[in-house]
């Protein structure tokens, strides 16, 4: 049954958070490790602050690009309510990695809907393994909110079928050429994410 073991990673968040970049980095890393890879996302209107998900699948051969509900191995939730929205996409043995920084949409500000009181609690109640920490705060402390992306990738780096260093190098390589001044801080962000996931 494991001759074509497919690893399914669902990255979920909000337009503008770097969901697609995270998925792209994961895909390129898997590709560099000799896997067949497919990546799909629903973009379109998504860049306007809507829900964004990106599906990354890799293995010996990948056919359908979309992860069926209940078959994700890892859920990378860039926002707690979004993690909750997609939690049932995980298989029972799957792991959710969650950034606890909340982002409330205008429909909540306008009082039309309530933000879940305790999204992490609700996720905990499903019995699924999860790690939740404030990746946004880590990024802010490092001085660049965009680093959330790297923090989250660092956080899942021990859950992948290839060494964490390979993923880190793929990220740092993206900066080495064009923005070498960002290599060090991304390295730091990655390691802080890695550490945070082990502690939470």
């Amino acid at each position, binding site marked *: *049954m494991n001759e074509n073991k497919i690893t399914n990673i669902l990255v979920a968040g*909000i*337009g503008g958070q770097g969901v697609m970049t995270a998925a*792209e980095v994961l*895909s*390129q890393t898997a*590709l560099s490790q000799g896997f*067949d*890879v*497919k*990546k*799909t*996302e*629903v*973009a*379109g*209107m*998504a*860049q*306007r*602050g*809507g*829900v964004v998900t990106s599906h990354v699948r890799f293995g010996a051969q990948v*056919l*359908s*690009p*979309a992860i*069926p*509900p*209940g*078959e994700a191995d890892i859920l990378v939730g860039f926002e707690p*309510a*979004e993690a*909750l*929205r*997609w*939690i*049932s*996409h995980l*298989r*029972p*043995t799957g792991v959710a990695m969650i950034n606890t920084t909340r982002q*409330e*949409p*205008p*429909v*909540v*500000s*306008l*009082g*039309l*809907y*309530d933000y*879940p009181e305790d*999204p992490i609690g*609700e996720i905990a*109640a*499903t*019995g*699924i393994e999860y790690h939740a920490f404030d990746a946004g705060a880590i990024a802010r402390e490092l001085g660049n909110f965009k680093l959330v992306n790297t923090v989250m990738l660092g956080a899942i780096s021990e859950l992948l079928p290839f060494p964490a260093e390979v993923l880190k190098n793929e990220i740092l390589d993206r900066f080495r050429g064009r923005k070498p001044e960002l290599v060090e801080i991304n390295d730091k962000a990655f390691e802080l994410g890695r550490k945070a996931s082990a502690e939470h």
Partner: protein
Amino acid sequence: MSAVPPLAENHRRFMSGNEAVARGAWEAGCNVAAAYPGTPSTEILEYASQLPDMYSEWSINEKVSLEVAIGASLAGSRSLCAMKHVGLNVASDALMSQTLAGVGAGLVIAVADDVGLSSSQNEQDSRFWGRFAHVPVLEPADAQEAFDYTKRAFEISEQFNTPVILRLTTRICHVKGVVTFGNRTSFSKAEGFVKDPGRYIMTPGIAKKRLPMMFEREAEMQRYSEVCDLNVIEEGSDSRIGFITSGPTYMHVKEAYPNAAVIKLGLSYPVPFAKIRELATQVDQLVIAEEVEPILETELKAAGIELLGKEILPRIGELSPNVLRPAISKLLGEEAPEVAPTKTPIEIKPPVARIDPATGIDVFPRPPTMCVACPHLGIYYCLSKIRNTTISGDIGCYTLGAGHPWNALDTTICMGASMGIAHGLDKGRVEADKDKKIIAVIGDSTFMHMGMQGLLDITYNKGNVTILLLDNRAVGMTGGQDNPASGRDIHGQDAMKIDFRKLCEALGVKPERIHEVNPYELPSLFTALRDEVKIPEPSVIITNQPCVLIDFYGAQPAFTVDDDKCTGCGNCLDIGCPAILVTRRETVIKPNGSEKELAFVKIESGACTGCDLCPKTCGPDAILPLADYIRQ
């Protein structure tokens, strides 16, 4: 977007279906590529424009893009046009006659169906056009095939003297996979354009003669479809069900039923009936899995082939493995398969009541919103404050004005429709609506795409519509592509820049009825709008600030809220800016005994770009520049 290496010997790269189509066309020696942006097809031309030695353009609409491609084909150059599904509705007039004329060099129409409606006003099945226009339809199943089939499409186009439809879907366009690619071959017909009025002048007499040729071509293609290597039977060890499938659905079928026999239709029209009958003899039951309409199903049933299709599979949306499995299990009399086997089964406690265990989507909705500081925000704020209006909208970011908090659009139908519909709302008004003010809202790109004609109709026919022409100098919703309003071409090079005032004047609007306003200047915008709706003549209010996502926009220092001054009135929330967040709500009892809801706010300083819109709605002046606040 990464740069595409122009020349590479049998390279492998991770690319999307859209990039693969551009690359395939380029390698096939395509010389001209044209498109109007539209999700999910937009990136085809974005990638094409980065490839050397191939002319590419953003056309002003899909019909023009197809006509450009037709002209280039007649001139002896292989040509490509790309569009989303609804784009072919616009371009169909050209297609329906061009099919009679045939092609010069290869002509490929890549059309992308938004199966599942991630960003469209409807869900269409472009395979119908193959039948309607009597042209072949190719359906790639992933990025590699998108690349291969694009190259192949040019050959088929020339072999059979026909335009070819390359039918894509979102799951092809926006899915990345590993693609092996090669080098560009150059192609052009040595003789160039060959005058042939008996083919290219589509008068009734000539068209009548061309009709039998078109049907002959279709019959010839039908024979080809039976033998061509794009249509293959893949035998399977499980003979209970045989699947007929094409495009991305093929991958879903193979994933869900790896052992079933399958006929994969790469050339799905004309239909290879004999080959499908051959599969029928090998299996107990034929099932057709096609997205979206039961087109092939109807044709196969009419041909006497017994099969199941939409009786057991949904007609709306994607046929992904999780959609196929329960339907097929039921058919086979099996229990629906359990969700993926697990190494160490963990008991999942029943999910909390408010989450649907199947989809998990019962969290609050997070619909697309207008961007922080979007120039449309002030416009919809004003529109939401004017009473007694009927507002026809159009296709673009500003369609979001139909949502909260503005609720300031009453219709959205198709590209450019705001004009004609507003005119019709005016001319068709009944007594009950006699005092209604009719307003149309349209963006710069949509206006040039198909709105200009509607405005001409309004002025010519003594209409009475107040038009808001929202010029943000970009095709916003598809990612800020250039157009004549930006004054830059597809490569970002300087190009003609349209003057909307002159254009509207030329279309018959009186100069004094045209106003150019800054949409962040709420008082002048509101005054212009209030005054113009009262005048029973066509008028145009042009807003002149750029989309915040393009380089013309310059962000300013952020604003903040002084908590001591905020009274919780919530006026600023009516702007609808996503950077304004509620910190707490309070219910107070007014002196007259009635209850009032208060909402105290803050501004997300990381997101705010200081557009200065919300301070204008704040009575107690509680919103001020962050720098001033810190200085206090």
